[in-house]
């Protein structure tokens, strides 16, 4: 259940930004979470209320953008969507590939008032 640690990282970032902006609380937080980032979204949602309790995010809505995994095959240069780490290249069937998207874990925006 590393999702609680992830939420604590999100709270740290939000707290620091809210403080810099001289605001008090966050209305909405927007996150980019890649499909290959190793975050289980249901676990994140489950842990969210507990993780944000007493913080600037306690009453914030959250919006999660799911970033699909993408890779480039290093054998035949084909770019393809990757659902799982073990997806082979659809063109040549090879397993040598470089992941170019899908590992994001980013606090994108905060809406403050």
């Amino acid at each position, binding site marked *: *259940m*590393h999702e609680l*640690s*992830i939420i604590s*990282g*999100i709270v*740290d*970032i939000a707290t620091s*930004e809210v403080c*810099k*902006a*001289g*605001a008090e609380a966050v*209305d909405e937080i927007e*996150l980019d979470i890649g499909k290959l980032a*190793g975050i289980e979204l249901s676990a994140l949602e489950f842990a969210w209320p507990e993780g944000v309790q007493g913080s600037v995010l306690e009453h914030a809505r959250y919006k999660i953008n799911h970033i699909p995994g993408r890779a480039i095959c290093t054998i035949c240069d084909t770019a393809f969507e990757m659902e*799982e*780490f*073990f997806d*082979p290249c659809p063109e040549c069937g090879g*397993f040598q590939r470089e992941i170019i998207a899908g590992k994001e*874990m*980013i*606090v*994108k*925006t*905060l*809406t*403050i*008032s």
Partner: protein
Amino acid sequence: MCGTCGCGHPDVEVNLLLQQPHALPLKPAVGGKTILKVEQDILSKNQLIARQNRRLFKEKNILALNLVSSPGSGKTALLERTLRDLRGKKEYFVIEGDQQTRNDADRIATTGAKVVQINTGKGCHLEADMIQRAVEELNPSEESVLFIENVGNLVCPAMFDLGETARVVIISVTEGDDKPLKYPDMFHSSQLCIINKTDLLPYVDFNVEKVKEYARRVSHITRFIEVSATTGEGMDEWYRWLETQ
């Protein structure tokens, strides 16, 4: 004022070391609300400390290995044997990570290596700041080897860089040989795979070639070392690998 873009609060100091993007306020939205563009990595705090750890290890020429596996793969037994066999060759230091108890640290201490136990409580993995504190306490010497035994868990430790020189994933033959496919994150982030308990191969349905093939599918691991920490079989190859790092 933000040194990068000139925006923001006058009291804000730009910390070059952190390199954290400072939120760019966008246009004030309707109803007095403002949208801040943050674009910050959630694990940036851990990554920053991991980078500090890595720099320290590099400066002191310390080989820091992060040992990861599921519970019961034999990490501690492998370490005990390694530390006994290699005693006197170099200086060895150990950081033990477990949710509870000092049991593993007590086992390691009998080998003569200096050891620190971290109890993570409810936590399921080690993080870079825990290693930073443990390293302060251990004070590993130059040219030494630091083994970090992570919490037995094939999921969570994968996400947290500790600043290690290399990550070593251990799988034992009493587990399923499809573990790399089931827990790809951990294999994907490792550089070496040790297959332990090979003395039990005659009694279990475990295909060594299959596990290697699956691991190659999800990672860049090219090196596999088959060992039995109980009988000592294959341990020489592991020691040679350690020497060449």
